[in-house]
């Protein structure tokens, strides 16, 4: 058995840059979505067709990414005496 149809592409999902990786092992397609920074795997789905696996992966990744809370960075250092 070998991975076939290995493919990577970059996109935006829910406002976040992601990498979508797909390949086929035997008769099963696997699609994973990774955040571009830092490159972590977010979701991975499988299906009997590429479209099926990818639609599931995209939906689950969008749900996870939509929950990310962004806080505008405040400047400055909080320091505690004696620490």
């Amino acid at each position, binding site marked *: 058995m070998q991975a076939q149809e*290995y493919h990577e592409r970059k996109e935006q999902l829910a406002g976040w840059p992601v990498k979508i990786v797909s390949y086929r*092992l035997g008769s099963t397609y696997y699609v*994973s979505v990774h955040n571009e920074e830092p490159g972590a795997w*977010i979701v991975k789905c499988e299906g009997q067709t590429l479209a099926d696996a990818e639609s599931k992966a995209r939906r689950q990744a969008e749900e996870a990414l939509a929950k990310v809370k962004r806080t505008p960075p405040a400047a400055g250092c909080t320091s505690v005496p004696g620490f």
Partner: protein
Amino acid sequence: MSTGLQTASGVVVSTSWVAEHLNDPKIRIVEVDVDTKAYSEGHIPAAVGWDWSRQLCDTLRRDIISQQKFEQLMGESGITPQTTVILYGDNNNWFAAWAFWQMKIYGHADVRLMDGGRKKWLAESRELTQEAPKIQKTSYKAKTPDYSIRAFLPDVQAASSRKTADLVDVRSPQEFTGEILAPPGLPETCQRGGHIPGAKSVPWAKACNEDGTFKSPEELKTIYGGAGITGQKPVIAYCRIGERSSHTWFVLKYLLGYKDVKNYDGSWTEWGNLVAAPIERP
């Protein structure tokens, strides 16, 4: 025969080198993935799989595995102290590097990473199997743990307040500034965003090429040296839970040859949750 990236310590092997050594009895190939189901989908023939979340962590103590558990894992994997262990995994070897670091803590002599990890093996359409290998168990005796490569909280406090070591934060720039608390799409595991005062930001992925392989030592020297991480002082690497920073620890110690490099596995989930600890933003 290609042996992969030429390093002084010979700890990186190429996918082609691994393909040529699948049946070498002196070698044990081990897959360690972030995605703990990936091994069962298909793995390198004869490779054993380790689940980082159960077999490389003591979740009760929030610690690395004990010496006894380590010896048990090695024995069940058919590894002796003389075995050459080749580690590989997904996410450009994040948890393969985590396993490498623990194997070095327990003194295993010959451990190597497969350059490019699982991604490169798949992309090259190399052979995979779903069959678990037949393992002849061994009795493994680990060495006394070497904690010179592990940073604990007091080491990091001293590095931050007294500049006893260079701190390198290997998370994404948005985690470093405090804009987000965890990599997008992953669970938030800390109370606050920001970084340890004095830390320099060098995201782990800067050490890798697009195909997942490590950059050349010359490129790495430019990247880390440019951020002031030169190896002239001890270095402590950290991230969120210690796996990304074990990747950078590997790069600094084995590809750049820095003498004193520690991985702070407590990382941001310890410091970011610590009562009264100073943080810096951005």
